[in-house]
């Protein structure tokens, strides 16, 4: 699990501007049921890849839980999810 310091350096190096959060005790990963037990370096617990899109009311509007670690959400999928959050929730 990357520390805030590693995140800061990587974020700078790659030129990202969004927030990087660090979950060293895998608490949030566990709460979201995304723990991939022993899959990290030296058998550490890490997160399985997952993407959520949350609207301005904190409601989840889109979830992507991949079945293959190599397959991740594509930018256009995330943009579609964003358009979804612009519309009022249907429930």
């Amino acid at each position, binding site marked *: 699990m990357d520390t*805030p310091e590693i995140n800061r350096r990587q974020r700078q190096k790659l030129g990202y501007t969004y927030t990087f959060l660090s979950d060293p005790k895998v608490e949030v990963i566990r709460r979201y*049921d995304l723990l*991939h037990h022993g899959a990290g370096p030296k058998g550490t617990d890490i997160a399985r890849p997952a993407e959520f899109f*949350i609207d301005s009311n*904190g409601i989840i*509007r889109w979830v992507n839980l991949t079945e293959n670690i190599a397959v991740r959400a594509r930018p256009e999928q995330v943009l579609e999810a964003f358009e979804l959050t612009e519309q009022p929730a249907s*429930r």
Partner: protein
Amino acid sequence: MSTTGKKSWNWSLWIGFLFALAGFLSYTFFAQFPITRDFPWANLLFFAVGGILLVLGLFRAFGKPQVYRGKIFGAILATLGILMFAFFSYVFFYVLRQVPPSTGAPRVGQKAPEFTLSNQDGKEVSLSDLVGRSKAVALIFYRGFW
């Protein structure tokens, strides 16, 4: 290999092996593009071309041994090619699919569970802070910057 001077170079074995090797080693490159990342088309194409050339080379080596070389190293290269293809397929189609089911993960329509974590500057940030100041939040769980 003794007096093989008169025999032709069995190029198809070597080129076939190089194609198989390229298929085996090039996924990190093709993983940059979603179309070749989500399904390893490019790698499988390399393996397919490599396989055809290796088979062709073996037919030459064993069918016309008086003309072509490669009975021994052809068998070795073909075996290595098969092993690389098997290992690649095992990793891509089995190992990478060993993802936990995450049946308890938050679903669409639910409120995203609140949390507070340190950001890249060591400052505590809550999900509600991010939601409160944005139109929407993309929450991405990843593994070591990929």
